[in-house]
């Protein structure tokens, strides 16, 4: 049945588009989460949150 075949091909194309769109949205969400986490860590960071590096280690 050509109509059914066409509908199946269209559905397949839609599924492939879904993969790309979902991947892109998740990437964008991850990037925004990085920005938000960075802002939160910077805002709440205290001296105890910074790793202590001795002079010998730094050298």
């Amino acid at each position, binding site marked *: 049945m050509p109509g059914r075949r066409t509908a199946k091909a269209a559905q397949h194309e839609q*599924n492939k588009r*879904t*993969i790309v769109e*979902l*991947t892109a949205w*998740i*990437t964008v969400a*991850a990037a925004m*989460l*990085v*920005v938000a*986490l*960075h802002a*939160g*860590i*910077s805002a*709440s*960071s*205290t*001296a*105890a*949150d*910074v*790793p202590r*590096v001795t002079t010998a*280690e*730094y*050298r």
Partner: protein
Amino acid sequence: MIELWNVSRALGLVALLLTGVVLALGALHNTSLTKIVGQALPRFVLVALHRNLALITVVFVLLHVVAVLVTPYLPLRWYHLLVPFTATFNPWPVALGAISFDLLLAVVISSSLRKYLSKRAWLVVHWTSYVCFPVAVAHAVANASFRGGTWWTLLVPLVATGLVVAALLYRRAARRRPALPLADRGRTDPAEARRAADVATGSQPIVRVDGPDTPPAPSAPAPRAGEDRDAADDSLAAPGEGAGEGGPGDTPARRGVFRELRVVAGPEARAREGEGEQGSPERRGRHSADPDDDAGADAGADAQTDTLAGTEAPTVALPPRPRRR
């Protein structure tokens, strides 16, 4: 400098969260969840998402590593991040990160070279993801400060671990294909492959019950594809099972002899299969053009198949299939 350290922490946390999502997708892709979700998203969409998100995770991990390296505040060199326990600064957390980074690299490289690897080797390496994730969680927890104000970042490894644990629990409870022993992963059962070839070539087994109750049917048609397939499969299970042996209507009159229509492989494949088999020469499905009878003859030319009406025209011999390790 401190800002770059914070960026590196944020990148690492997001990479850990993405790793949890990827691991959960990988654990669920063989369960019935994909059948439920599959009404909206087919299984190949979930598999492609698993692959794409894994690649994005690798990008975030690389950004995390680069941010740590370029931070002048931290006395870390590139080999400290690849070889565990080489860093003098913060040795245990850095070593945990190096181990999980190495495992991640192994999974990514083996997946990139998957067509050159056997399925078993790829699967064994891929399963190290289940080691990589807890080590990465331990790296995140060990690097977090419990005294400072950023204790809340521990929520990220907690959420990621919850995702993975929930996925694994669902995988354990859900109905899925029966698990194969690791030694059998990626191996093809010759009998199963032969049965699949029969189905693929349209050469379904033909079953006949010869008995006093059965009227002679010299020109009985072969069952078409999909028709009486279950009955044929049941009869194929064993010579005595399909005839109702032990059943309520089990009488000697109902017992019969099975015959099959089977496309056989070429002499080389048959000889190769025969090396590992110690079966009797009178086994079921034996072909008239047996390579043992005449090793030099062309089995394809001499092939004759038993049908209900007697011997049939020669069939084409299947080329030997390359066996995967």
